[in-house]
């Protein structure tokens, strides 16, 4: 569970901080201002940024990217393989997919009719059909997917990247979560910095005019007043810096205010989707009839704008669809997956195509994944329970070999039988594509050099271009 390499750390964090010209806060600030942080050696970086499309609750692999004709043959019959304990312990019969699959693009990648728009980009996708997770419950599986560990308290993927690579923007944070309304099971600990400094935790953006908390002064305080107060503060701070002999901690805290001021200007600007041309807005679905699609469209468009400005890692969470609990279709599979797909398909397709048009897809890694898949047998009569033993995700963009389908599940789509890919492998691959050797991105905490991939993880070379 724990532990990994311990040796060969050139500088401990504390030593490094001590030697670093600007001391403690300086390093933290360096992360935000794009100054150099200790960049772990690794492969050539294929991508600079990541957009993580988090499919909350778990999408059914056998209804999306892993067609299983055997399910049609055995539909309604008792399931033909050994069944592991399930979350609801209400195992029904074999359940065929209600959706048709077809091959798309030159690669002939199989995609179900749930995703008519994304399937246009089939040749950009590397579909991994052999994902496994260690956990059957949302919360533990979410922590595992986000932090590489099944309990709260570890840094999220984005926090690791913020720590490892810093941010290219000097007016935006490195790690942003765009919250469409749903927070994963397990709560905001999924986006936390864990034992890393708080600087690296996600900044939560909402798809609205002022997307960040406490961004602006109350309207009752005029801009003139704000300006004069800031100038008083600046002159008082100059005196404090003097008084404290320009101590690093004080200087860094003062610089931190400069960053906040820049963010106050940059964030409303980046969030102003009105400035996008009409055809782009329509492409993403900002005018869609279905409200969740409109919300998700705003999230995807905002993500592209943040990527353009150098944000390192963006996680997009799903919007609420009425009457459904995320993708978590324990019952009413057809309504659930139809509506969740409707909410996400067009915006995701537009995001991929827009990035491509702008030449940004090459340097942006797009990851589409939930915390696990769903059972090929029914829960009750018309639902599917959690399945961590074999499920599908896809990646596209920077460094990804498009048009690939990797790994295989058994004839029912229940268990992986070929080229198993763990969550640690997924993380290792993501870091690899950003030029980071996952075994070298470490942080000393509680006596260990901690890693996103713990002691595990292998890069899935077969999907890397």
């Amino acid at each position, binding site marked *: 569970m*724990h532990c990994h390499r*311990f040796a060969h750390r050139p500088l*401990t964090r504390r*030593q490094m901080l001590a030697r670093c010209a600007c001391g403690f806060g300086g390093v*933290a600030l360096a992360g*935000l201002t794009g100054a150099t942080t200790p960049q772990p050696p690794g492969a050539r970086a294929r991508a600079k940024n990541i957009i993580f499309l988090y499919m909350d609750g778990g999408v059914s692999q056998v209804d999306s990217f892993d067609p299983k004709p055997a399910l049609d043959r055995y539909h309604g019959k008792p399931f033909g393989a*050994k069944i592991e304990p*399930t*979350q609801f*312990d209400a195992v029904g019969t074999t359940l065929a997919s209600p959706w048709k699959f077809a091959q798309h693009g030159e690669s002939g990648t199989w995609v179900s009719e749930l995703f008519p728009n994304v399937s246009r980009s089939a040749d950009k996708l590397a579909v991994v059909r052999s994902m496994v997770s260690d956990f*059957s*419950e949302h*919360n533990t599986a979410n922590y595992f997917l986000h932090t590489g560990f*099944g*309990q*709260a*308290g570890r840094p999220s993927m984005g926090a690791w990247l913020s720590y490892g690579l810093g941010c290219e923007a000097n007016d935006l944070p490195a790690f942003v979560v765009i*919250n469409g309304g749903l*927070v994963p099971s*397990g*709560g905001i*600990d999924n986006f936390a910095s*864990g*034992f890393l*400094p*708080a600087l690296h*935790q996600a*900044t939560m953006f909402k798809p609205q005019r002022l997307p*960040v*908390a*406490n961004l602006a002064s*109350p309207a009752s305080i005029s801009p003139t*007043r704000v300006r*004069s*107060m800031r100038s*008083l*503060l600046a002159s*008082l701070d100059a*005196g*404090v810096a003097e008084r*404290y*002999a320009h101590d690093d*901690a*004080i200087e860094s*805290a*003062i610089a*931190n*205010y400069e*960053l*906040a001021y820049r*963010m106050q200007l940059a964030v409303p600007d980046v969030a102003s989707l009105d400035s996008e041309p009409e055809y782009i807005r329509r492409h993403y679905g900002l005018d869609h009839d279905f409200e969740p699609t409109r919300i998700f469209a705003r999230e995807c468009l905002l993500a592209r704008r943040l990527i353009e400005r150098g944000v390192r890692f963006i996680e997009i969470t799903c919007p609420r669809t009425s009457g459904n609990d995320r993708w978590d279709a324990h019952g009413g599979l057809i309504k659930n997956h139809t509506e969740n797909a409707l909410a996400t398909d067009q915006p995701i397709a537009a995001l991929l195509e827009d990035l491509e048009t702008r030449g940004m897809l090459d340097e942006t890694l797009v990851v589409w994944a939930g915390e696990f898949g769903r059972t090929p047998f029914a829960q009750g009569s018309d639902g599917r329970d959690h399945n961590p033993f074999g499920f599908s995700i896809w990646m596209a963009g920077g460094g990804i070999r498009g048009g690939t389908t990797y790994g295989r599940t058994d004839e029912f789509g229940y*268990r992986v*039988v*070929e*080229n*198993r890919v763990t969550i640690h492998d997924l993380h290792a691959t993501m870091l690899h594509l950003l030029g980071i050797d996952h075994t070298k991105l470490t942080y*000393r905490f*509680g*006596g*260990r050099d901690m890693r996103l991939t713990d002691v595990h993880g292998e890069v899935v070379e077969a999907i890397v271009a």
Partner: protein
Amino acid sequence: MVRFLLVSALGLLPVSAFAQGLDREALEHFEEQIRPILVNRCYECHDASSGADAANLRLDYRGGWIDGGDSGPAVNIDQPNASLLLRAISYSDPDLQMPPRSKLPEREIQLLREWVASGAPGTEEAPSSEVSEEQFDVESRRLAHWAWQPVERPTPPENDRDDWCRDDVDRFVLDTLESAGLVPAAATNRETWLRRVTYDLTGLPPTVAQVEAFLADRSDRAFAKVVDRLLNSTAYGEHWAQHWLDLMRFAESKGHEQDFLIPHAWRYRDYVIQAMNSNVPHDQLLVEHIAGDLVTPPRIDPETRCNQSIQGTGWWHLGEATHSPVDIRGEEADRVDNQIDVFGKAFLGMTVACARCHDHKFDAISTSDYYALCGFIQSSSYQEANIADPALRAQLANQLTKHNVSFGRQLFGVYATVARDRLNKLRNVATPEQRARLVEGLTATAPLGRPTVPTVVRFDGQQLSPDDWITSGFAFGNQPVGVGTILLTNQEDASPLRIAEYDAASNEAASPKLTGMYRTRTFEVTGKRLWYRFRGKAEVFLDVDSHRTVSGPLHSVCEQAISSPGGWTWHAHSVEDYVGHRVHVEFKPTGNFALAQVCVSDSPPDEAPIADDDRFELSTSVASQDAFKRVIDTFYQAITAVEQDHATTSDARRVNWLLAHDEILPPADDQAKAELEEALEEHLTRRAALESRLPDPQYAMAMIDGSSENEFVHLRGSHKRLAPDPTPRRNLVALGEEFPIAHGSGRLELAHRIASGDNPLAARVAVNRIWAHLMGSGIVSTVDNLGVLGHPPTHPELLDYLASEFVASGWDTKQLIRRLVLSSTYRQASQPDRSLAAESIENADPANHLIHKARVRRIPAEAIRDALLVVADEVDATPFGPSVPVHITGFMRHNRSPEISGPMDGARRRSIYIQVRRNAFNHFLAGFDKPIPSTTVGLRNQSNSAAQPLMLLNDPLVHQLVGKWAANLTNQFDDDSSAIRHAYLGAYARLPDSDEMEQITSFLTDRLKGGQDPARLRQTAWFDVCLALVNSKEFVFLP
């Protein structure tokens, strides 16, 4: 070892013979068809270099797969199809799939299957291993690292700077500085010291009045007086409790999907504050944390009379928890891992949990050390403990029991005399109906034989070992209530007199008004149902693999309410899903309750009446006068047996039958009836009087000792692969290992060994943390890790000096803090002495490890919020009690937010009283590095993030408090310069210098120019000044 080798060598003999007789063809087949598969698919891990990571399984020679690895032989020659190797490659067992990445092609599986069936021939000689197995040697590890060595008190070094050395502590610091060619910094000014010490001791800024009083006090004792005042304030406990809560990953909800609240968590927080305030010796605090439920007599709060000691054990239950684990044993393993992680880091400064999967890579801690500690946890369990005045409750329980015994005897005596008389009257005059009914009663109460189906008894009041008697509270007394005991019950529509029919765990001997819980020993579920023989009412909780948090979809069967107020019955508890798991069962009475047996059986454990009981010729008894007399005699004797205290179950049931069918007997005379009723009335009155003195229950989370359980080593950390034998409970080998455990878990014995001056770690860890909180960095800067990967002490002698002084003082925390804050080391300015050249500092002590000056530190998150309340004169200093619900800002609110949002200003209480919800962490405190409560954090991060300025500039709470502060200043002072001076004293504990005075005055002048409404202008101008003052860095930094 030698013996083992001999045995296995002998065991190989027939195999060798077999090998010699093997035709070449088989070996050729192996080399041509099988070896290539093994080379391609298996040797990456399972060759000569195979170690613990590969389960010590080698597949490069025949002995490798025949002897097998950690999980046993890979090939089973006798039953080839049962071979582990075949199971692994078939991918049929999701927990054992090899090769791990992909299933082998069918062709290769088939070849291996045939090969195993043919006896798995192969080369006999083991290729030599390149890797020499390095034995894990705790003792050499222990000897090699400083932290395990005994603490020895060094003599403070001599020097000629007695003027500087206020405390012997200073001599160590000065000595190190001088050896490095440095000198200490000058003493800081009085204002800075006052602000520093007030924040360090109480987490609050000094008030204006306190600053003025201190500056005016020129006496020698001025500094000491301040320190004593601070140490004696409630605020001291509130601040230092927070340090401790960080170690204990304190939270009031369990996180994960539902974020269920942890009941009574706030009491643990109050316990810690009170312990800090009353300066409980640190060794006692440790004992109470590990085993406060077992401390006798417990520490009693002088005011509330509550049991304090037991509340220390609450920390065990503060971890996160998932509510419906699919893999319940796996959930337990992770939960225990967290408990041991906190235990190791907080109490020992060692990363014990690193040894969960393998022996510690660096420290003197083995995997068996880890699982030895697990046993203590598994021999214990959660309890919701009533902490209200234990002495009073014990005394009342005792009185109630005595009262029941004496009145029971008296009442039954009255009843017996009359009943025997009435029975005698029946001998000759009974009507056929009376005869028939009495015979019926006799039949119904005939002795019963053994159960007719196989059962495994897990509790039987009659046959008790100490491990079977586990109770909390006073409801169940010290032992089962014996068969034949005369019970007095005041249940309506039942006879007030009842005779106990079984030896049972019961609250009826004393009073059902007493709180308590009975739990069984821990046992393995071996059948589909548990059966409880009980009467009365109770809540039942089935604790599977020590899992507690139950809310569907799974495991809701664990919680049940059982009820049978009318009489004894068997209750079936379905445990089909838990066969093979270890469980215990808890019974918490919700009225009168008695439990006679718990057993495991697939079908009802019905007992047949003993058939050959022919003494009464029951079928003919109605006709035979003689036989009927014997019926009467039997009842008669049953009454006498109860009276003389040798009743059997049958006797008791007969008397109870008679009591319930009183109308069968001829009427008693009125006088006897009246006498009985009068006695009963008196009994009830006196009992009610005793019961009314019982204190209201107050519940806290705690540990309770269970039966003795040892854990098996989980091979490579997997709970699905256990070592063959359990590891006995003991201390870490490097800390002296085994000790006798008489009974139960042995936690108390462990606690005394951890909290001992002989333990080289406990005192060092404690004094180092105190030092770090006051000086900004520990003598060992990695305060939670004194192991090999931690940093070495900057002042090893000083660390040992402090540790030995601490132990010698009786682990007196306040005394140590007092000495340190009055030392010259602490009193230094944050700028180096002017005589020191920048270059010599850069060479000798660039990171200030040697403390040539004070460290500039940011005050903790809680102190920032509290300081805002204090300067605005808004703080509600009320201590203790249930937490204020966390405020959910509009921005925080999401689909998983708590329904109820607390007030924005946290009811103006200090931050420590704001509820800590894992899934709804207070945004302000989190933004300033309050750690996520997952494991021990001894020293917090001090980071910069954009959220911090945004909060201090724009958060509605900051604006509300700044507004109050500005209003107070403008109301109190008409002239701005007085207001400015007052504001500086309040925010920074100093007066403004002339520049600052000038800047603010001109700001105000500028803003007051030419307005229509001068009062309002002044108000908003002052608002902006105050906002600037709380945003200026001095507000959150200590120079």
